[in-house]
């Protein structure tokens, strides 16, 4: 028997390492028992509800090496525990990768952006309300999905890539980073691996309990954005029920290079339509070399939703996604 409402933080250890080596050592030692804590905005609800019960939190925000935005030889590097507000307001990000600044500025609410980190926004867990309620669904290690059924409340759920679980990627910055072809810097006590943004996220067909490919002991420490797409034409839009707090019903992030009215290259990704940010490669291919126009926008919009498999209450996401693609292409 469980009481249906908890909201007090239960006993849990807290570690506040101040240097990288300590943090990696703690992560390695604690493994799955150690919860990586960024700004905590996606953490405390889980813990208060007692729906996730790690033994300890490892706070990453005291490590200066993982904070801040710096210019590198071929782009910029953003520390994973940099706050979303800093990213949204940073002149370098704004001037070169406005797409990310806009996306970061559309996350949740000002206070959440003031505390929430880029790493936390990328690694945040699914927002399916059944899962969040603490039900033992597939994503929670159970054997059932409550959302994917004729009566399930699945208005916010996936159009693509569902496999038993139909939750979507809730992150606003994730599609922006996929569109910017960013690289995730992942460290562990064993070393470092670099993962393209697109491959950082994982869907339920491959891993039904995790949203990212991070293994136990691994920490996302930085995000590198190459200059490849710097100063391209950007389009970011998030459509949500309410203009504050709410997660996207559908979001789009697009980087398009145009020369003389002709699209040279394009990278687009949609949020909230799949468990991972959905890269729209078919649309990109259809755009390359074409004259930018409303007609072109209409043509490629249809391509974007090919293969969509709406659930009972999310058909609207199909026209919405098409419309956002149109808007991105029209600019």
């Amino acid at each position: 028997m469980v009481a249906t409402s908890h909201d007090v933080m239960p006993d849990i250890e807290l570690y506040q390492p101040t240097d990288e080596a300590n943090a990696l050592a703690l992560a390695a030692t604690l493994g799955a028992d150690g919860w990586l804590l960024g700004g905590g905005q996606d953490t405390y609800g889980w813990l208060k509800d007692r729906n996730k019960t790690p033994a300890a939190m490892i706070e990453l925000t005291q490590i200066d090496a993982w904070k801040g935005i710096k210019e590198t030889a071929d782009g910029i590097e953003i520390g994973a525990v940099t706050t979303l507000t800093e990213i949204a307001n940073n002149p370098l990000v704004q001037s070169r990768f406005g797409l990310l600044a806009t996306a970061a500025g559309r996350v949740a609410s000002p206070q959440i952006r003031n505390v929430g980190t880029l790493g936390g926004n990328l690694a945040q867990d699914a927002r399916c309300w059944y899962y969040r309620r603490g039900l033992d669904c597939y994503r929670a290690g159970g054997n059932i999905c409550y959302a994917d059924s004729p009566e399930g409340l699945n208005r916010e759920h996936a159009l693509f890539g569902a496999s038993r679980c139909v939750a979507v990627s809730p992150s606003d910055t994730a599609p922006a980073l996929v569109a910017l072809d960013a690289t995730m810097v992942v460290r562990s006590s064993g070393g470092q691996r670099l993962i393209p943004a697109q491959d950082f996220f994982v869907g339920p067909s491959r891993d039904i309990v995790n949203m990212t490919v991070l293994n136990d002991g691994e920490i996302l420490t930085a995000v590198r954005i190459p200059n490849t797409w710097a100063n391209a034409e950007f389009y970011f839009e998030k459509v949500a029920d309410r203009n504050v707090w709410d997660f996207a019903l559908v979001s789009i992030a697009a980087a398009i290079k145009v020369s003389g009215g002709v699209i040279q290259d394009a990278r687009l990704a949609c949020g909230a339509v799949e468990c991972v940010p959905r890269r729209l490669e078919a649309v990109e291919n259809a755009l390359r070399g074409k004259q930018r126009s409303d007609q072109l926008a209409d043509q490629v919009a249809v391509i974007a939703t090919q293969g969509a498999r709406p659930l009972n209450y999310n058909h609207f996401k199909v026209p919405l996604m098409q419309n956002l693609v149109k808007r991105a292409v029209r600019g």
Partner: protein
Amino acid sequence: MGEIVRYKRDVWGEEVILGVSWDLLWVVAVAVLILLAAHAIIMAALANKKMDKPSGEGRRVLRHETIDRLFHWVMAASIFALIITGTSPILGLRLAWLNIHWISGLLLTFVVVFHIIRSLFWQDFKSMILGPRDFGEPFDSAKKPGKYSFEQKGMHWAVTVVVLAVIATGVLLFMQIDTPFWDRTNSMPESQLGLVFLLHGLSTLALIALVATHIYFALRPEKLFYTRSMLTGWISEDEMSANHDPSRWSPKEAD
């Protein structure tokens, strides 16, 4: 360790079965390895007493028709695919396993149905019937079996039971996922669902044990000719007479 059944809470907070405890996968693996290793050691110890290995040369008789061999290997492939895809997420491998799993399961179901029908009407069904006589076979070296030995029949029927259990539970679970043929519903009560998962898991564990045993015997030197026959279809007359009673099994000559 120690748990056999995993539990979860149903949507209303009541404890229900979630499925088998996958800790048992290790238990089964270790147990099978120990048993087979023990068997191998005993057989090695006895090896010098039985040197008279029959020759594979000479006239050949037909043991398995092409279609049956095909059935066997399709079944084997699908079972391998099912075991690998089914256990990979438990082992922590990130693999898009579910589609391969249900397609293999569907294939297995079809070939098993095919085999049942064929065995009932076209094959010599009696040759696989396990009778009282068979049980004396291991204790009397004078008694030789017909087409199938006691061990072979035992293995066959054990596999039959386990595969049918895996299939039956698998089909029920298949109905719980979205497929190109239907959209899933949540019509099965969670307590029943857990029971189905448990039975699927238990039969999977049994199947893994049987498959491991089967492979072990198939690779044993004194049985290798049977394995060859499953590839080529024939055994030699020498092998036949050394292991089988011609009065009980009169095979055709192989082509």
